[in-house]
């Protein structure tokens, strides 16, 4: 058990290191001179002398390896430098935004889990009957509708037509519902198929036959025998989907005027603000790695087969 955890942690550290190298090289390889950008940002005319002075100041004239070490040291301490566009501290901007994105992703993960379990169980309880076909159709629809269109439909239905919920803004739980639902549609659709297929597979295994011969009802078998069996698969798929939610957050946050990390990243991309792009990218990659780590540990807890393998 401890062996597994230490091995897994080491693996995560290697991945984190790789992620930091990718983020660093991406910005280093960007075309154009950063020093000129900064010099112009400060309102000075970018004379060769002044550009050289800026280069000296932010350490651009040091060797690449030294620059990487400096940058990594700062990043680990939570200092991502200043934005080239606004001149503000990137870390200060990010601190608030991470909470917003956190609320967004956590809420929609819960909603996606509930919807997908409901749809999946519906399908597994009446396989190949009407409920199964409906849940299958909904899954195809949910997986194929573009997220931005889902958002537009939500706003049209709940804010414009019925006027129940605010169409944008971040104030209070009432304004959180629409973004949560918008992001949850795609993962719910994908996960409902995972639940449905997993349950079907579990229902054909020998232990279910044993349970049937013991006289257990269909409901009892589904919840007591099949559900624990698909938990590890489900957690795994949920982890992937939570990782993907960072990408959908980039689409949904601007749509609902939320000041989150995705919105910040998009602004950075739009104005080619390399420091912002770099910081957000590093946060996204770290998030994937941490989510994967948590998923692996959770699978270890829920799957006795893997637990036995490692103890």
């Amino acid at each position, binding site marked *: 058990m401890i062996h597994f955890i230490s091995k897994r942690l080491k693996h995560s550290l290697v991945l984190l290191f790789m992620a930091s190298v990718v983020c660093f090289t991406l910005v280093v390889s960007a075309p154009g001179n950063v020093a000129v950008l900064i010099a112009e940002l400060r309102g000075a005319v970018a004379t060769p002398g002044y550009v050289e002075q800026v280069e000296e100041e932010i350490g651009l004239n040091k060797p690449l390896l030294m620059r990487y070490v400096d940058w990594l040291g700062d990043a680990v301490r939570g200092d991502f430098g200043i934005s080239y566009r606004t001149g503000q501290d990137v870390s200060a901007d990010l601190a608030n935004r991470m909470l917003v994105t956190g609320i967004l992703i956590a809420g929609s993960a819960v909603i996606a889990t509930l919807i997908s379990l409901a749809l999946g169980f519906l399908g597994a309880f009446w396989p190949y009957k009407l409920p199964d076909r409906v849940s299958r159709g909904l899954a*195809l629809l949910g997986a194929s*509708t*573009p997220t931005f269109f889902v958002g537009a439909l939500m*706003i*049209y239905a709940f804010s*414009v037509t019925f006027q129940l919920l605010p169409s944008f803004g971040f104030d209070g739980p009432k304004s959180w519902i629409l973004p949560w639902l918008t992001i949850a549609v795609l993962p719910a659709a994908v996960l409902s198929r995972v639940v449905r297929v997993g349950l079907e597979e579990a229902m054909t295994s020998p232990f279910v036959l044993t349970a049937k011969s013991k006289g257990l009802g269909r409901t009892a078998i589904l919840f007591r025998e099949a559900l624990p069996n698909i938990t590890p698969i489900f957690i795994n798929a949920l982890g992937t989907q939570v990782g993907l939610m960072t990408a959908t957050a*980039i689409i949904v946050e601007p749509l609902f005027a939320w000041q989150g990390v995705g919105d910040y990243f998009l602004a950075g*991309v739009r104005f080619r603000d390399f420091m912002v792009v770099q910081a957000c990218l590093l946060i*996204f990659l770290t998030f994937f790695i941490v989510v*994967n780590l948590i998923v692996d540990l959770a699978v270890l807890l829920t799957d006795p087969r893997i637990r036995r393998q490692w103890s």
Partner: protein
Amino acid sequence: MNMLNPILARLNKMPRAALITIGLFVALGTFAPWLAPQDPSTQNLLDAGLGPSAAHWLGTDHLGRDTFSRLIIAANTSLVSVGSVLGVAMTIGILLGTIAGYHRGWVDDLLMRVVDVGLSVPSLIISLAVIGIVGPGYWTMVLALALAWWPMSGRISRAVAVSIMSKPHIEALRVLGASPWRIYFGHLLPGTIGSVMVYATADAGTAALAVATLSFLGLGIQPPTPEWGQMLVDALPYLESDPRQVLLPGFALTMAVIGFNTLGESIALNRIPKPLTRRMLAMRRAEVASWSKEKSDA
């Protein structure tokens, strides 16, 4: 006609609705410039925001442009972009995948590690990062999406290449003294391309979605070129007064994606008979068998 029969038989086994949708999308995309009844970028502010009429079948947008024509031209934009994205991505993926499958060893390990990382990061984040570094533009978008898309075809072509390389005829070629070039270009590459193409069609839906998403974010297709995602974001401020302009491009895009996704699902379920290569091999075998029959007849 005889030539067409096996193809028709194959198409018959695929979901009919998906084929019709995809056929419609491809036909509209290909012949869009001739099909569009009006110029998609002619503005007429006096006719702005109209409902459906004889002159404008699906009404006009906030600048008075004909929505029906714009929707059709957008199919063309989408088709061309998806084609070039998948083309570039498959070229990179097949080249690297076959090289990994041919060499094995550390080249294989390294490339597959890169592919693993590429597949675990959402494609939108990869392509946005590339656009953020290089700057927006049509070809940047194609390049950025291709960079996010190649790991998929890379992994498939590597798997196919490995299975081809372990076949007896490759060993026989080696014994005959065939050069690596001959094995690679004559036998490995043609064999891989066929199977990867089949999977790529299943990917076309998500690629179309990605193009639309980038355009929606204002970093893909730039106005005034009509594109579904960009039309949608264009009309979004007028959602309350004129929801039709938001809903129509959204539904068009969703239809296309559903078509490709259904096709992809049927490919994944292996409802499509064997990949091109294996079919060609079977035909060849049948031909060779018929030779010996002719010989014994004579």
